[in-house]
């Protein structure tokens, strides 16, 4: 039997971690992730988990400890945000390249400078090419559900890649919401026991991890990562189907909200999708055919599936909570990826980017409504008036 609890997003994730009961968690506190591992530390102190909780001296060490423990054969988790992830960066790549199925709660926060502790997506976009699977979560509930599924995705023999589960710093990480917490035994049964194929601690069968790898084989190992990433899409769908069967909540590669008959769509990840849904309902009340596509899986990027879902809309507005400085028109990464995906899959029609919410700036329903009205105009004219708009920045 599941129960409903009033939890902050971070507490929901910490509860998932308790139920998963991993062998090792290595983490370093950083706002806004801190309350996740703080809560988990309570679980350790209360004897509710068997986890070896390693309090390291930096995030570089946290991810290093995770790689070591994962190589040893442990089920490993961590949590971080923004500058913490930046400090992990070297080892983030090593975790993926060494094929360590680590699960990370990534509570999205703006990168310095100027120093800022509030939400945007510049942190996760920095690791988008690192070989990690990346999942977005609209709410604490989704972050909880995604953490549970992430373990299965990461550890699947066809995948063996680390997974980052994102949620928005403060907006969901510290907002209290009603979260359905599944029965401990059900979660335990769902994630199952981790059986590592090549545990380094198997001293009867010694092996080497992370050796020197030059021009003769490095490239082949990268090619293997491509295969694992490609395999992961089906695994993500299979795990979601099993999750739906067991826990009755439906996840896919993305969520389509009132998209079937929509003339225009907004594409936006994480918590803002929730606000957009409110605006969609309001505008639908006015008879405007608007819809939402909320990416759940950002890596691997489901380009053809998204293109298919957007093939009937007349205009698309992407909302990016980060900037790819110096990219085409200084657009955001989600827009660039989506535009490429639509074009490559033959979906024509105007697409524009709306950068918003940097450093935690609020995004208001009336601003989203403005984006929809722009999109409706684009649908009418077939033209992109302005490729990139920096929403609500003061001139």
């Amino acid at each position, binding site marked *: 039997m599941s129960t409903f609890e009033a939890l902050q997003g971070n507490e929901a994730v910490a509860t998932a971690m308790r139920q998963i009961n991993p062998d090792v968690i290595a983490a370093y506190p950083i706002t806004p992730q801190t309350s996740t591992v703080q809560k988990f530390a309570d679980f350790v102190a209360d004897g509710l988990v068997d986890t070896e909780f390693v309090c390291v001296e930096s995030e570089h060490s946290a991810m290093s400890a995770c790689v070591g423990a994962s190589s040893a054969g442990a089920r490993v988790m961590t949590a971080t945000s923004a500058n913490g992830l930046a400090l992990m960066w070297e080892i983030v790549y090593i975790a993926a*390249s*060494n*094929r360590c199925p680590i699960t990370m709660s990534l509570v999205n926060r703006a990168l310095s400078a100027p120093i800022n502790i509030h939400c945007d997506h510049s942190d996760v976009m920095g690791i988008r090419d690192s070989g990690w699977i990346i999942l977005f979560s609209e709410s604490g509930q989704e972050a909880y559900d995604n953490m549970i599924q992430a373990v299965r995705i990461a550890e699947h023999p066809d995948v*063996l890649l680390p997974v980052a589960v994102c949620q928005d710093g403060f907006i969901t990480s510290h907002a209290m919401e009603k979260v359905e917490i599944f029965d401990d035994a059900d979660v335990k049964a769902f994630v199952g026991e981790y059986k590592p194929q*090549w545990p380094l601690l198997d001293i009867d069968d010694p*092996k080497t991890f992370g050796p020197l790898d030059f021009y003769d*084989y490095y490239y082949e*190992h990268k090619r293997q990562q491509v295969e694992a990433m490609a395999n992961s899409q089906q695994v993500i769908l299979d795990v979601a189907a099993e999750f739906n069967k067991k826990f009755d909540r439906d996840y896919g590669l993305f969520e389509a909200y009132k998209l079937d008959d929509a003339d225009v769509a907004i594409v936006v990840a994480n918590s803002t999708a929730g606000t957009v849904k409110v605006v969609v309902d309001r505008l639908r009340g006015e008879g405007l055919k608007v819809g939402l596509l909320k990416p759940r899986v950002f890596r691997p990027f489901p380009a053809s599936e998204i293109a298919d879902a957007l093939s009937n809309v007349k205009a698309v507005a992407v909302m990016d909570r980060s900037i790819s400085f110096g990219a085409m028109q200084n657009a955001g990464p989600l827009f660039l990826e989506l535009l490429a995906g639509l074009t490559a899959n033959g979906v024509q029609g105007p697409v524009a980017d709306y950068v918003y919410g940097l450093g935690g700036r609020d995004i208001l329903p009336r601003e989203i409504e403005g984006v929809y009205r722009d999109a409706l105009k684009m649908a009418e004219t077939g033209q992109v008036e302005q490729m990139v708009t920096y929403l609500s920045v003061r001139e």
Partner: protein
Amino acid sequence: MAKLKGWKDIPIGGMILEAGNSVEYRTGGWRAFRPVRGEAECIHCFQCWLFCPDSSILVDAENEKMVGFDLEHCKGCGICASICPVNKKVVKQAEEELGRDDARLCIRMVEEGKIEE
């Protein structure tokens, strides 16, 4: 050099699953100088065997003899020649500067290009 394998035929993540397979990696081609036995008689002290970083000193364990060099793996670093106590004795007795490839030494380091096979 062994035939290079494709990405489907190697362990993932650069893992090496067989212990001790570094013998398959022939590093002899890296060598610029080759260790060669000289005129001074070896005393079979095994100092070279002990210090060689590539386990490339061949010994006859039963008869406790140093018998030569594994040239498939020796990188020519010259540690064997520099640690050799007989070499030190030869240099001291010579009362002159000796080259690394002096024929009077016990272990000489001879440039690969100057070796007649």
